[in-house]
């Protein structure tokens, strides 16, 4: 065994543990802050952990065995994309892997008979279609700036990416709003509170431990995208942290001051707004 293997294993374990704890706490903070914005007391910060533990302790009920497979796939790829990002691998591949996670979720939604889950799966595909191109464009932009597709190259770049890619950053805020399932972009999963149209969207037919797996998977997804945003000020992690905190609060704020939209509106915003901004930025780099 070479030392590289050991250091990678150590990073992996640290990421998995750290991602789990951070993801849970962030969700807790999310819920607490949301509550305060709505003039409520709100749950304790550790409530998401309680929730997951409670779900884990429930009887395992599944509509079909495939559900478990898809849920675990979702978790696995969410974790994998975060680990690879921390390890500084190729960004395009990481994006591909994180898209895998979303696809597993969609398949999970499709694997059951419930019309709510099915329609929600369709919408999730639209969400993927809305968010992924923006992410790809962002990566192209990063490549143009650093001349390298690996995540490891970014911190070594002398200037923060934000200076060169300000519009891409704005476009990413939209994409990440979609990925974090925040209002007004949350049309498919109803992960947070948009439960009125589709009950709980893709999650409708998941229960107990399987749902816990999805929940934890979402934490990792969230951390993944936040770290990805953090790359924009990679050389200095303190400023990156500040940037992330303000982004997070901004997403919460927008979540609290807007209603949910329809998917056609979502596509319009993501493609025209998000891709437009990112494309302009990228084109400008070419010139």
């Amino acid at each position, binding site marked *: 065994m070479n030392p590289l293997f050991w250091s990678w294993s150590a990073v992996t374990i640290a990421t998995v543990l750290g991602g789990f704890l951070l993801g849970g706490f962030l969700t807790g903070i999310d819920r607490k802050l949301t509550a*305060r*914005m*709505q*003039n*409520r007391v*709100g749950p304790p910060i550790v409530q998401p952990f309680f929730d997951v533990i409670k779900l884990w302790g429930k009887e395992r009920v599944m509509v079909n065995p495939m559900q478990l497979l898809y849920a675990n796939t979702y978790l696995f790829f969410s974790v994998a994309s975060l680990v690879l990002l921390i390890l500084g691998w190729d960004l395009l591949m990481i994006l591909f892997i994180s898209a895998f996670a979303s696809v597993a979720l969609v398949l999970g939604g499709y694997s059951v008979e419930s019309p709510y889950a099915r329609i929600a799966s369709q919408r999730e595909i639209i969400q993927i279609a809305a968010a992924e191109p923006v992410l790809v464009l962002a990566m192209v932009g990063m490549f143009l700036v650093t001349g390298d597709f690996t995540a490891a190259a970014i911190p070594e770049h002398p200037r923060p990416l934000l200076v060169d890619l300000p519009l891409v950053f704005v476009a990413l805020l939209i994409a990440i709003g979609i990925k974090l399932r925040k209002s007004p972009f949350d049309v498919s999963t109803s992960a947070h509170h948009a439960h009125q149209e589709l009950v709980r969207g893709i999650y409708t037919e998941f229960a107990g431990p399987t749902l816990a797996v999805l929940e934890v998977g979402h934490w990792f997804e969230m951390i993944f995208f936040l770290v990805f945003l953090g790359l924009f000020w990679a050389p200095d992690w303190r400023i990156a942290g500040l940037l992330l905190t303000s982004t997070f609060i901004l997403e919460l704020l927008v979540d*609290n*001051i807007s209603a949910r939209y329809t998917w056609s509106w979502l596509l319009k915003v993501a493609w025209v707004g998000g891709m437009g901004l990112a494309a302009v930025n990228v084109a400008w780099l070419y010139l």
Partner: protein
Amino acid sequence: MLEMLGNVIKNTLATPATRRFPAVQREPFPGTRGHIRMDSDCCIFCKRCEIHCPPDAIVVDRQDRTWILDPNRCIVCGKCVEVCPKDCITMFPHHRAVTRVRIREIRGEDDGRGRRLEPMATKEE
């Protein structure tokens, strides 16, 4: 969107409007219809409360000198409080916890305090 922004900011700075419920509880208003209690010492077993009670929650037996209330049936309307000629039934503002226990009031028997709780199931026997 911006209309809501001011509200959200105000809320974040204000103290929450909700309370940590089981730990912190609001006192009911003085006139709240919470639950009723009968004082068996003054009851004359006239059956007026039984006749007027809309959901038939009260059963009064003159012979046995018992007055039985089924809290599950009682809708806490307060009609019995109004009609009792001796004013032995009182309305209290606090809500009683949900119970499967019937409340039986017996005069002159029991442990001297004239009050005994018994489970619903044994009532049939």
